[in-house]
């Protein structure tokens, strides 16, 4: 039996949700916030570099031992990325079609730079993420850094041998090209997030006049925090942090 609710049949709820512009924005917001959570957790892991090689390597090794969990996260992320990008593409195509003839003079009053360029910052972040994943696959590094990451091994306190992540990071960021590229990448990501977080709250309806200013500050604050956190590592390496590990 079909239940009618709000004039639509319950069976058709999901298609309608996916079909509507608001539903798509819901999906973008939820997947966006999901990826944001990953980015935040990822940063807490990365920042352990400042606690020394032992802590970081042990953390990395610990992660690899929880392979099942890792796969769950990977699959989730892939689904999120896929949904986020596909919705973005569909929405953008629809948005373009909604104005077939552009203005001779277009000013977009009130729109911040981040807000106007989401599709571009998003696309570049996607490229960056793709490269970033390769960055960690050992073979791709040889040409850039002159190091073979496969040879970077270390022995943890409990005696197990594993990848020496600390040395990999330092070696990678010792190359100015890699560092600059990385900083630009996370910069773009955070630029994307500075609007994205605010927009996600808006799309999910989690915003009103009372919290409006707070949401705005939260969004830009979070974006800056992430940027400073991520960028601190290559900057620290450039300043000489951890160089001794390479020798």
């Amino acid at each position, binding site marked *: 039996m079909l239940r009618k*609710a709000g004039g639509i049949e319950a069976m058709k709820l999901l298609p309608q949700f996916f079909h509507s512009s608001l539903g798509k924005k819901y999906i973008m917001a939820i997947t966006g916030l999901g990826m944001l959570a990953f980015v935040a957790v990822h940063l807490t892991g990365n920042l352990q570099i400042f606690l020394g090689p032992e802590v970081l390597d042990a953390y990395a090794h610990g992660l690899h031992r929880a392979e099942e969990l890792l796969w769950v996260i990977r699959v989730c992320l892939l689904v999120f990325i896929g949904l986020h990008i596909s919705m973005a593409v569909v929405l953008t195509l629809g*948005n373009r079609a909604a*104005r077939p003839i552009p*203005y*001779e003079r277009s000013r977009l009053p*009130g*729109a911040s730079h981040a807000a106007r360029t989401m599709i571009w910052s998003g696309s570049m972040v996607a490229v960056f993420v793709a490269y970033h994943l390769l960055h960690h696959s050992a073979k791709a590094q040889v040409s850039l850094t002159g190091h073979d990451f496969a040879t970077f091994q270390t022995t943890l306190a409990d005696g197990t041998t594993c990848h020496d992540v600390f040395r990999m990071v330092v070696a990678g960021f010792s190359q100015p090209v890699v560092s600059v590229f990385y900083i630009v990448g996370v910069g773009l990501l955070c630029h994307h997030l500075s609007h994205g977080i605010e927009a996600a*709250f808006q799309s999910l309806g989690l*915003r009103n006049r009372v919290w409006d200013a707070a949401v705005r500050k939260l969004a830009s604050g979070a974006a800056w925090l992430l940027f400073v956190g991520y960028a601190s590592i290559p900057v620290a390496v450039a300043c000489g942090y951890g160089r001794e590990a390479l020798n």
Partner: protein
Amino acid sequence: MHLSLRVWRQKSASAFGRFETYEARNVSADMSLLEMLDEVNEDLIASGGEPIAFDSDCREGICGACSVVIDGVPHGSRHGTTACQLHLRHFKDGDTITLEPWRARPFPVIKDLVVDRHAFDRIIQAGGYVSVKTGGAPDGNAIPIPKTDVDRAMDAAVCIGCGACVAACKNASAMLFVASKVSHLSLLPQGRVERERRVLAMVRAMDDAGFGACTVTGSCEAVCPKNIRIDVIARMNREYGRALLKAGFVE
């Protein structure tokens, strides 16, 4: 004052359009932009030309008929003002002003600066009302309504349906218009009865009309002549989520 105008001229919906340049000489700073267009038209008619077609009616900023993009900004860059109330004192002598019609697929140009905004009527017809018949209404004081609720409802209800939000949005999204009506009615006990049905139906009508989606740029609130804020859009998003949840799980 002397102003140069670059105006979009298009004979009919199917014709090709292009910009033409006109000179508005000896116009007074106290005139509104549309009064200046009236004057330009007087000259055009007298000299055998074809006057510029543009929509306007009340000329006091409330009917929502006027719809001109002035130098890239719907209704011009003065805050909270419709084109009919934009006075020339806000321009400089010798300025060149570009006038374009609203640009959006659901708002096809009819002629020159006149566009067809029926899509808005269809969205209201989809559910932008309270389903009460005439007669039989209870006393207006039967349900006390908190003043703050009424005030917020009115903040949204002031929408004049001009379409500047669509015209300004880089996606030609009608979210501010639709959300104004959804917010207005969902904030009042009278409108709350059918809030789920309303928001689902109006959003569907909005999407079907071919408007773009909201990317929260805020251009709509920047140009809204009635200063409606995008928190109404957040409210509509909330209403929408609520309606789906209720439809799916409560019923």
